[in-house]
Structures are given as C-alpha cells and as structure tokens.
C-alpha cells in the first residue's frame, strides 16, 4: 500500500541528492556542513524507523551540532541570469506554467480518486501521496520538455534548499519539543495558572480567559493542536461547558480558531512563518509574522466575541 513510507523514500532520495551535490559544490566554503546536514535528513527519511528512539535522538543532536556551530553556508548561484530567464520566459510563453500546475492538479484529482482505492493508497495519507506523485510527474514533464542534464533539477533544488538551510527541520524540532512538554506536564501547569486567574461567576471573563489562553499557549507551543487539550481541560470543559452550560461545538470549534490566531503571531510556528520567509529569501525572518498581526489581533477579538455570543445563546 502506498502511504508515508513511499513519500519518505522519495524525500530520502531527494535529500541524499542534495547532500551529494552539496559535497561537490566547491563554491560553498561550508559545503561539508551542508552535505552532512542533508545526509542526516536523508538517513532519517530512509531509515528512521530502524534507528530506534535513542538513535533518532542522536541523529537530532547531530543536526543541532551542525546548525548550532554555524557550519552551514550557501554556494554561489550557478543558475541562469535574470536576462537569460526573461528571454526564455518570452520564448516559452505560458506553457511554462503547465508543469507547475501539474502539482496542484494531481493533488486535486488524487485527493478524491485515491480514496476509491483504499487497498492501494493509505486513505489517511491521500493528500500527501497525491502531492508527492504530482511533484514527480511535474518533474518528469519538465525534464522531457526542457531537456536539462539529469542533475540540473536537483542542483536547482539544492539552491532553493540552501536558502532554507537549517530552518527546514525547525518545524519537526518544535513538534518534538511539544512531545517533551507533554511528557513533563507543562500543559497542566499552564492550565492551572490560567484557570486560577479567572474571576468567579463571570461568563465573559471565562470566555476571554479561554480565548486569550488558546492564542497565548498556541504562541508558546507553535501549534493550536497542543494548546487545545490543555485549555479544554483547564477552562473549556469544567467552566464554559460544565458550570455555564455553553454549546460544546461552538466552544471547541471557535476556541481552536482563536488558537489559529496565535499561530499567525509566533516564530514557534516555523513552517508557516519562518520557512516561507526563508523560501522567499527575505532578510527579515519575522517579515511574514509582521504582516499577519494586523489580521490576527482583530480576528482573535472577533473569535472571543463569537464564543460568547453563539456559545451561550440558549
């Protein structure tokens, strides 16, 4: 059955190619740092399940040591110049969009079609599988049409990957930190503090504590999924649903969305906020967050109001 192992194999091969090309990149003074970093990610994708928990932990320490000691760099851009690109863009026309659109098209079709074949495709992973197949098909189409050397696509991919650098594994690192926080009981302590700060007998006060708590704890954890069980246990279920008889569906659903407002405002949500800044080669790594605060704060206020208004309408 095609599922995560299939995707991880492709990802492992792609990172292995980045590692080899980095090792050969003489224009990068820190090429060995990049090569080993990408090689460790390739090992994680290809053999992570065989390493054992401590083995994976040691692999992470390797990644941290390379990134933390500043051993990664960027090579010279051996790609086409802006002038060459403009000339080729004029010559090739809008057909250039076709391979790029193969990825969303396959993701769209696959999401629906793969569910019809649960024996072949893991029904829980259809979107990721479709994305991976779309990326490979797009590469095949582009390769057949543009006819570059086989290594060129991976050379260009490595150029973009070097732009992201160590930030590539930050989302995974933060997810793992969340697991350690859960093991250490951080959520319970935060929940007790917020639960203790609520004025007694005030529905609005409890709603505000719940909504703000979701956003703030999401900012700390970088993930509303980690904040929801904590805030539900501390305020949502005992007070809002229990004592004040609020509607559970409203309190859960809009509470989660209050958490999403927090996701927009924190560097801890690295895959949404820091990685795009790196991918777009922005100098200010917080540039995306700064653009989001203006939407996140008013929307958080709206969410808190909606919980109070819709959740206690009966």
């Amino acid at each position, binding site marked *: 059955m095609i599922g995560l192992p299939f995707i991880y194999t492709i990802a492992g091969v*792609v990172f292995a190619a980045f590692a080899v090309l980095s090792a050969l990149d003489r224009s990068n003074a820190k090429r060995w740092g990049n090569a080993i970093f990408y090689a460790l990610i390739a090992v994680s994708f290809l053999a992570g399940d065989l390493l054992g928990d401590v083995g994976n932990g040691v692999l*992470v320490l390797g990644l941290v040591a390379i990134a933390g000691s500043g051993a990664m760099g960027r090579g010279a851009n051996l790609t086409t110049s802006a002038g060459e690109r403009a000339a080729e863009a004029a010559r090739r026309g809008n057909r250039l969009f076709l391979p790029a659109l193969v990825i969303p098209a396959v993701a769209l079709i696959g999401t629906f079609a793969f569910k019809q074949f649960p024996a072949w495709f893991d029904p829980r992973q259809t979107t990721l599988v479709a994305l991976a197949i779309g990326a490979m098909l797009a590469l095949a189409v582009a390769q057949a049409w543009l006819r570059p050397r086989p290594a060129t696509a991976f050379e*260009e991919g490595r150029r973009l990957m070097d732009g992201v650098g160590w930030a*590539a594994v930050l989302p995974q690192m933060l997810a793992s*930190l969340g*697991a350690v926080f859960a093991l250490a009981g951080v959520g319970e302590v935060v929940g007790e503090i917020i639960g203790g700060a609520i004025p007694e007998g005030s529905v609005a006060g409890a709603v505000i504590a719940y909504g703000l708590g979701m956003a703030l704890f999401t900012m700390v954890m970088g993930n509303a999924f980690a904040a929801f069980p904590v805030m539900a246990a501390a305020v949502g279920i005992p007070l809002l649903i229990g004592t004040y008889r609020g509607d559970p569906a409203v309190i859960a659903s809009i509470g989660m969305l209050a958490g999403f407002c927090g996701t927009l405002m924190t560097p801890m949500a690295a895959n949404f906020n820091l990685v795009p800044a790196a991918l777009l080669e922005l100098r200010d790594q917080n540039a995306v967050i700064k653009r989001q605060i203006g939407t996140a704060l008013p*929307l958080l206020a709206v969410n808190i109001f909606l919980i109070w208004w819709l959740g206690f309408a009966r």
Partner: protein
Amino acid sequence: MWVLAGIALIVAGFLLRFNPLLVVAASALVTGLAAGIDPLAILAAFGKAFNDSRYVTAIYIVLPVIGLLERHGLQQRARELIARVRGATVGRLLLFYFVFRQLSAALGLVSIAGHAQTVRPLVAPMAEAAADLQSPERDKTDESVPAMAAATDNVGLFFGEDIFIAIGSILLMRGVLEGYGILVEPFELSVWAIPTAIAALVIHGARLLWFDRRFRT
C-alpha cells in the same frame, strides 16, 4: 512550576537570536530535567517524536521541479502575465488568491497550494510585478509584498480548512471532547468554523485592499 523554565528559555533564546535548533534542544533538556526525567529518556522521547513528525519536512520534494522551472523563467513569466492584466493591483491579486485558497481549503484541498508550491514560484512574483506597475519608483528593498503574499496563504488556509469535516483539528476536538463524555458530530464543529471564516475574509480582504494605498503614485 520549574517545568516552565523551558518556555522562558525558548523566549529568551529567540529574543537573543541564538540558533533556534540549539534553543529548542536546550529547552527540551531543561524541561525534561525539571520534571525529573532521565536525560536518556528525554533524548528517546525527542527522537521518537522527531521520527513521527517527518511528514512536515516532506514538502521539500517539490523543490527540484520548482527550481528547474525557475531556471527556465517561471517567475519572469508570472510577472509578465500579471503585467498584461488590466486593473491588476497587489491587493486585488492577493484577494483573488485568498478566496481561492480559503475555498479550496474548505473543500479539504489543503495541499494544492502552499509556500513552496505556489507562493514562491507564482504568487509572490506576480504580486511584486503588480506593485511595480502601480508604483514604478517603489523601494526595491521593501519586503512587504512577498511577506504579504505568504501571510495571505496562511490566513486563507487556517480559516478555510476547519470547514472541512475530515481535517485533523476537527478530529482532535472530537476526540478530546469524547474523552470527557461529550459527543459532538464533526459536522457541528465544521459549521461553527464558518462565522470566523467570513470574519477572516472581511478583515484580511479589507487589509489587502488597503495595502494598495502604499503603492499609489
């Protein structure tokens, strides 16, 4: 209380601009030790969670084809395309993308767009081209346009996806409530995501159209 030391360390580490990977690893160690967990057990818990969350890093498999197309002028073509659309502005273009992103996410199609797949190769260069048309003399070092393109992708995704009943957060909420003996249908949870989705469209849409005022000449 001491387990909160890890959170303090994260905040301090990010503010002092230490390497975030180093800060995260240190925070995990401090938090685990404060909770009385054996260092080897912390390492194992961290390694297991790292291995279980590899799917977040799998997105980079799209980079080779995106890089190859960029080499052959994809971004330049995206710019030219926008330059030919009459009345195209940064705000209108991003609002169009926002509506597309929010609606497709509401149908569960979260992977058809994203920072690597669409923002970097298409949306960000188109937005820059529109800004150049609106204000040819604008500050070329200004990063607000690509940053707004990425922000628009995030807001559209976050406040669209929860309308789809089979998304992870809906299943998580249902599971948590079920643990307390409260049964809710996924459909009820997804319906209550609609008011916020409309509010996000109004607030972010208004900000995008307001954003155009920056590029008036």
